[in-house]
């Protein structure tokens, strides 16, 4: 069985450490009609990074530009993993013994039969090649 892989455009948003900042950003996107397929927050005690996979990249970027909110588009990999025990382990096993590492990972908000994981690999090209050649049986 092949691994279902998709290259995704993720938007990383800088969140200043002040009350209500996350709400402001999410509200801004909601008002543009942007739906978030996946999101994660990474934070330090001083600032945070909101990482999102929007359904509409253009609207998202326009909303952030208009509000002068710092952001950056990063390519990440969406990997469909069978929703059963060992599903994720089987995918991660593919990278054992390779030079590929995982910078971060989070999951899609609405799951179907197969859960989508959003992964930032390092280096990404090598990871995509390994995934393309993989056969999980």
């Amino acid at each position: 069985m092949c691994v279902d892989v998709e290259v995704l455009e993720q938007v990383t948003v800088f969140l200043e450490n002040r009350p209500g900042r996350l709400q402001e950003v999410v509200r801004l996107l909601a008002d543009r009609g942007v739906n978030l397929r996946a999101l994660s927050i990474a934070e330090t005690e001083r600032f945070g990074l909101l990482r999102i996979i929007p359904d509409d990249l253009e609207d998202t970027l326009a909303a952030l530009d208009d509000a002068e909110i710092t952001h950056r588009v990063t390519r990440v990999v969406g990997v469909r993993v069978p929703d059963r025990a060992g599903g994720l382990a089987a995918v991660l096993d593919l990278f054992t013994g390779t030079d590929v590492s995982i910078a971060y990972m989070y999951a899609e908000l609405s799951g179907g039969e197969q859960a989508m994981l959003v992964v930032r690999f390092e280096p990404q090209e090598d990871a995509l090649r390994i995934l393309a050649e993989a056969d999980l049986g």
Partner: protein
Amino acid sequence: MFQHDIQTMPVPDLRRLQSERLSRQVARLHARVPFYRDKLACAGVDPATVSGIDDIAGLPMTGKGDLRDVYPYGLLAVDRAEIVEVHMSSGTTGKPVVDAYTAADLDIWRDVMARTLDMGGVGPDDVVQNGYGYGLFTGGFGVHYGAGRLGAVVLPMSSGNTFRQLQTMQDFGSTVLTCTPSYALYIAEFAAQQGIEPATLPLRAGFFGAEPWSLEMRAEIEARLGIAAYDIYGLTEIIGPGVGAECVRQDGLHLFEDHFFPEIVDPDTGEPLPDGEVGELVLTTLTRTGTPLLRYRTRDITFLLPDACACGRTSRRVHRLMGRTDDMLIIRGVNVFPQQVEQVLLRTEGVEPHYRLIVDREGAMDTLHVEVEMSESLFSDDLADLIWLERRIESALKAELGILARCMLVNPRSIERSEGKAKRVFDRREVTTHVR
């Protein structure tokens, strides 16, 4: 050189001139200003014994508080009828400080501001875009008078309305910009946002003052606007801008000491310090007639440079101002000047020189937070990159200031831009010091 003979006068002649002017000024103040008559009496000074400039150290000093106490007209040394113009400080920290000018004072102001602009070669072919505020503030009118004296075209813009500043600059081919250094930087930034390459503007020189700025900030302004940026110095109490300015060598500010005699004193004791030592600049107005001041404590920290300047002017120079005694923060017992933070940020690649200092107290401990604007190019999807940036700034701050400061990254353009003097320091400690 404008007023070449005075500006290159041999030093012994200059001292003689200063001596004559000082003894005449002391005699006038004694005769006409009760405030100074009392001060001289308290200090045990008989005006008749003041014969040379070296006697100045025995004269009483004047502080900002003295000026406020006698607001508005207590220091007039002439009849009110002889006053033709009044300027004053904003009075944000108390009663305003008043400077009342006679016609002769305005002539002095024209001359010293002409000398200032002449440092950068301003003449009849120049168009001076004056972005200092017009009004009670001295900046706008000071530049206006000096540029007029040199026959340049003056555009009396005042500060603000940056879009119009840019348009006027392009339409009228402004060659010289005068404003606060933080506004100059903002104009460059605004131009870039409008798709105008700031270095293609017709400007060739700028005269910036009214707030302290660092060498790094100068380099930034010069690179972004493609100009030579000169530091100018003055204060309302003395005359406004025109107390001193940098020549083309950009190595210290020449003080126009035939009018304003400088001393450096220990800020704590008021005792004169030897040349070359860092202390508070004290100025005596030798020629003013409206509101002359004896040994005025400027609260500006600097030192006198030892050598003669290669430009030919014989007036002494002070090092660019290092801070103000009132801007100086004492954090955990260490003296911190906001410009030190600015220098660190400008040396850190990718960081915008817009910042706020927030001083607070947690328990018994003073804390310093430095809010720093991140540039778009610096932003990373990688948390580790941003943490590393914060640490890099913090260790540079530690090396420069000698104390720990916490760096807080904030959104680009989230720190308010100033069209006049930038407010960068927020000291929240006062709240806790008055608890009874």
